[in-house]
């Protein structure tokens, strides 16, 4: 099987005159965690629903695990989905719930029992397997939903806002599970979320949507770079070496160096022209500047990069799209 598991080509969904998703294209491979980002109403959920055959596209094509969009039954066998704000039957236990879904995928009663038990253990719910779902906390329900999305050992797992409404500990648990899905199962995870710092940690690829269109996609570095986020850094050196440090940094024409009035031993370094296209352009320049300072024998008391986070890129590209 090819390592490419998700391929969306110019996917479009219209409701009458309203466009929910327009020309969305991206790919994902095995073991990859793709962050599907965007403000509310950007088209993330619609994109997931299109790729999981819950909705039919108005135009465009896609394939999941090598199955074309027309093979909806095969696609459903290949994917696991945690829908946004998924509901759960209050009168079932977690074990019953998973066993039922396992059987819908064709597993025999005995195997469904085994799979359900293993998945409940994997998401830390084995001790609550026979408790009613109505007694579960929100975090437990989300973990149960993730377990359900894995009953068919899917090639691609779609998780729509899996951390919504969870406390920081719950968010961390869910993110750890997501890492485990990609790493241990070699599955592709398409993750829709608003937790940008966490996306930065777990996602190997990011697709930012706004008004139904892909604004930017690529690795986190590429997205930051494409957004032309101006990266800066603060460098603290001994006060008597400040002048020498400035002289060394003068060798970098793309850098603007300033001295803080209130902290004269701190220099701010800013890129004049952020570089598009190369994901690590600004980082490379900062690293080179730092290397030059240490090579000149100037002690570095502190060095902090600023202004090059995914959240900065997200805000920039989505606000530009609005403007």
């Amino acid at each position: 099987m090819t390592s490419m598991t998700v391929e969306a080509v110019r996917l479009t969904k219209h409701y009458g005159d309203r466009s929910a998703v327009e020309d969305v294209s991206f790919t994902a491979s095995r073991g990859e965690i793709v962050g599907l980002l965007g403000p509310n109403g950007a088209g993330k959920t619609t994109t997931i629903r299109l790729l999981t055959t819950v909705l039919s596209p108005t135009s465009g094509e896609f394939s999941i695990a090598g199955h074309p969009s027309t093979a909806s039954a095969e696609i459903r066998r290949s994917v696991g989905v945690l829908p946004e704000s998924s509901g759960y039957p209050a009168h079932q236990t977690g074990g019953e719930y998973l066993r039922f879904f396992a059987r819908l995928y064709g597993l025999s009663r005995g195997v469904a029992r085994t799979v359900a038990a293993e998945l409940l253990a994997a998401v830390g719910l084995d001790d609550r397997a026979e408790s009613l779902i109505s007694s579960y906390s929100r975090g437990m329900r989300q973990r149960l939903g993730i377990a359900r999305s894995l009953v068919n050992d899917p090639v691609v797992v779609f998780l729509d806002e899996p951390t919504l409404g969870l406390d920081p500990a719950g968010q961390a648990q869910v993110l750890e599970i997501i890492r485990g899905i990609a790493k241990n199962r070699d599955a592709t995870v398409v993750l829709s979320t608003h937790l940008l710092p966490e996306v930065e940690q777990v996602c190997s690829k990011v697709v930012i949507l706004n008004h139904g269109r892909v604004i930017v996609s690529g690795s986190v570095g590429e997205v930051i770079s494409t957004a032309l986020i101006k990266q800066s850094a603060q460098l603290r050196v001994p006060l008597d070496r400040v002048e020498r440090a400035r002289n060394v940094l003068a060798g970098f024409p793309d850098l603007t160096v300033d001295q803080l009035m209130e902290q004269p031993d701190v220099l701010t370094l800013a890129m004049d022209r952020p570089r598009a296209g190369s994901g690590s352009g600004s980082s490379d320049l900062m690293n080179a500047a730092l290397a030059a300072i240490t090579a000149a024998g100037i002690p570095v008391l502190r060095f902090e990069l600023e202004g090059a986070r995914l959240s900065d890129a997200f805000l920039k590209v989505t606000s530009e799209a609005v403007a």
Partner: protein
Amino acid sequence: MTLQVAPPDVTTPQDEAVVDRQSGWVLVAEQETRDLWTSGRGLILLFLFSILLSGVTYLTSTNQALNFLEQRESVNLVLQLAVAVGVLVTLVVSADGISGERERGTLESLLVTPVSRRSIIAGKLIAALTMWFATFGITIPYVWVLARDVGILGQALALGFLVGTLVAIGLGSVGLLISGLCNSNKTSIVASIFLLLILFAPTQLPSGLPQGGFFDVLLRANPVASALAYISSVLVEGQSWTEDLVLLITPLLTAIIAGGALVLAGERLVKLTPGVNAG
């Protein structure tokens, strides 16, 4: 707590020992039926029905003892009540089938499984029909009490079961159609109850529908009224089962048309947005 999510230790789903060839509709029907009865919804409706039936049976027995009501009429009255209420609860449960799952957020999880939309509908219809079967089961002892002395027990039970099942299938299918088309669950249930009341109302007129060509057509076009009229004609008027069989045409057509519509439109009805064109 371990959070390492490794694949389950089972063989591939293609393995004969692993794969269960049980149809999706059977699984959905099993689960829906279990939900209906373990959640208490089914039991509450059944309990209310048994109170109503007890009251009606007591009153008809008393009237019969005072010679105000012929015994066959007592049986007919109780059986008609069972059919009417059994169909009502079946309709209410089926009206919740799709719109209710949409509102509770449980439908999407079902839609992303390999089970076809038609199987989901079939499973839900069967689960709703268990309400009718349970209602009928509750009715049996009451009918036995009233019918044992006039020798129509077997006939009354067979008639009630067959006619009631036919009407329940038809109106249960209508309930699911309404549920698929309605924006909200409340609208779906209210519309379904309203529909049943419209169909049931003519049977409750003190002297029945007036006689005459127009009213005969009206009676025969109404699946509930005509089904109840058929039961009366056999049980009270002593007609043979085949004599007024024409009265069952509308209940049969309702079952065929509504069931057929579910089969044909099923793929477009069971979805996150109501209606058959959206989504």
